[in-house]
């Protein structure tokens, strides 16, 4: 039987959800207007006043904001509550430019914890579970986000943080962790390490994994599920909105339910800014509905995906978003072709290669080059040069069919690609250097 953390809200009718969103949006816009001069100025520039926003149908009248606005207003420019009412700060793990810092009041933390507790419940978690949180703890929202949500749900929670792989596996086994929360690349790494230590799925009681904070493919999911003998669930979130738990997968593993009582989602055309109907791909835009310290109106996530409000087998009525096809930030334009690293990963996994790869883009004689480094595995290795060369050719062909570009594939030594235990470095774009 499907379990819910807050059944009434999670299974509310569409009319009830809309009514709740209408009411909250009006308040949130008023709050932003009253307390954030940066927003008020943006709204005035667009000729909008709080009174113009009566229902969620009016959302299109509001100006959109982007990461650039967040950077520009660093650190306090978008603060919507007095600092004395704030209790926490988190920051994005962004590797380029100025970091984004987000503030939380106790109310903001409470609603975030609810979101995460819903996600863990949707992955089958209950009070009886032991939840191992192997996301990094600190400014990154992954660790503390899952930690707080797990405690709120009542799981016995192991705040491991990331790294120290042998200890992770030892505790997982000895303390009988049933749920693992970390990035998918770290989950894959833990699975590999377990195998090396001679442990299989039957040696650990783990039953579910909640993996997020980076892009991963369906093939990678199946591979982790097989290695660890678990069901792997996707979780989505952004520090700007709170952190992980903005959306999450349920037992159906078919799209992530958006916590619509706290976040209003739209899909827009990234070029024109026009709203797109359900089912169509576009850029995901979020508006927070009841945040105090760091409210966001129409925040452009750069994530390309689509949304559906069709009924879900799990009984939850919240709209579902697809796994983002890619981030417009991650998207590489190589010889004029749009390439997402996730497409390359999907091909590799489908052909039996590990998810240990690195994409290197460069420009030689004014032409873009695409190199894909893939780590050799015992399964792929044979003494036969011709066979390995043929497999490599097969990979080049499959990549060409997927992305429309010829890549140079290089097989490299095992563990030679740097693995970061937080986020994997999948792309090196030398054109920018």
């Amino acid at each position, binding site marked *: 039987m499907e379990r819910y953390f807050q059944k009434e809200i999670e299974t509310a009718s569409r009319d009830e959800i809309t009514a709740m969103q209408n009411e909250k949006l009006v308040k949130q816009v008023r709050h932003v207007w009253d307390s954030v001069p940066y927003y008020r100025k943006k709204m005035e520039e667009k000729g909008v006043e709080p009174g113009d926003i009566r229902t969620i149908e009016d959302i299109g009248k509001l100006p959109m904001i982007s990461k650039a606005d967040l950077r520009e207003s660093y650190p306090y420019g978008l603060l919507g509550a007095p600092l004395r009412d704030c209790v926490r700060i988190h920051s994005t793990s962004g590797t380029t430019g100025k970091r984004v810092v987000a503030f939380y009041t106790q109310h903001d933390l409470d609603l975030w914890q609810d979101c995460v507790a819903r996600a863990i419940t949707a992955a089958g978690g209950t009070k009886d579970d032991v939840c191992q949180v192997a996301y990094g703890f600190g400014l990154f929202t992954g660790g503390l986000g899952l930690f707080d949500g797990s405690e709120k749900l009542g799981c016995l929670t192991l705040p491991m943080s990331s790294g120290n792989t042998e200890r992770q596996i030892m505790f997982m086994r000895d303390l009988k962790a049933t749920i693992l929360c970390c990035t998918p690349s770290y989950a894959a790494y833990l699975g590999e390490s377990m195998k090396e230590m001679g442990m299989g799925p039957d040696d650990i009681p783990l039953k579910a994994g909640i993996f997020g904070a980076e892009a991963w493919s369906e093939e990678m999911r199946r591979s982790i599920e097989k290695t660890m003998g678990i069901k792997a669930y996707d979780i989505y979130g952004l520090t700007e909105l709170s952190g992980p738990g903005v959306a999450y997968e349920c037992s159906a593993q078919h799209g992530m339910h958006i916590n619509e009582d706290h976040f209003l989602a739209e899909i827009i055309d990234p070029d024109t800014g026009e709203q797109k109907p359900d089912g169509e791909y576009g850029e995901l835009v979020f508006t927070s509905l009841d945040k105090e310290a760091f409210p966001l109106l129409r925040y452009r996530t750069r994530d390309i995906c689509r949304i559906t409000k069709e009924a879900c087998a799990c009984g939850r009525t919240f709209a579902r978003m697809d796994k983002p096809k890619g981030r417009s930030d991650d998207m590489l334009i190589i010889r004029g072709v749009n390439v997402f690293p996730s497409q390359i990963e999907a091909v590799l996994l489908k052909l039996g290669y590990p998810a240990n790869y690195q994409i290197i883009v460069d420009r030689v004689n004014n032409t873009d080059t695409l190199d894909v480094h893939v780590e*050799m595995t015992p399964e792929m*290795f*044979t*003494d036969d*040069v011709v066979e390995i060369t043929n497999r490599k050719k097969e990979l080049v062909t499959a990549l060409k069919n997927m992305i429309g570009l010829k890549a140079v594939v290089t*097989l*490299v*030594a*095992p563990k030679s690609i740097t693995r970061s235990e937080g986020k994997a470095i999948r792309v090196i774009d030398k054109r920018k250097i």
Partner: protein
Amino acid sequence: MSVQQLSVFVENKPGTLGELMKLLAKNDVNIRAMSLAETQNFGIVRLIVDDVVSATDILKQNDYISSLTPVVIVAIPDEVGSLSVILEIMKNAGVNIEYMYAIPGHKGSEDAFMIFRLSDDQAAEQALSAKGYRLVAQDEVEGL
């Protein structure tokens, strides 16, 4: 009768072969014969070593990828033309050679040793034994 050859994956860039050799030396692995198959970006180092089991373990512990491949080692007289004679025998037996390399005869020994990766080890063994050639067994490798 075949001998296990160790095939090791290495990247084709300066220093990788040296590192592998250093590791084997440090662990007292004695190499009796070796050959290198290379492509543009990777190579396969093929080794006949004294103790193939411990060599495999050492490689695995140090994150090398290797596999064992059965090869046939034939003792041939260390004199002009002897190789062409056994190649003829194999041709007549319908055996194809995928690759081969050699342990040349050393002073005081009458034999040289040819290492073959073949399409059909049994057919080769039968044909060669019938003509009086000696095949080297795994436990003789150390003494080569």
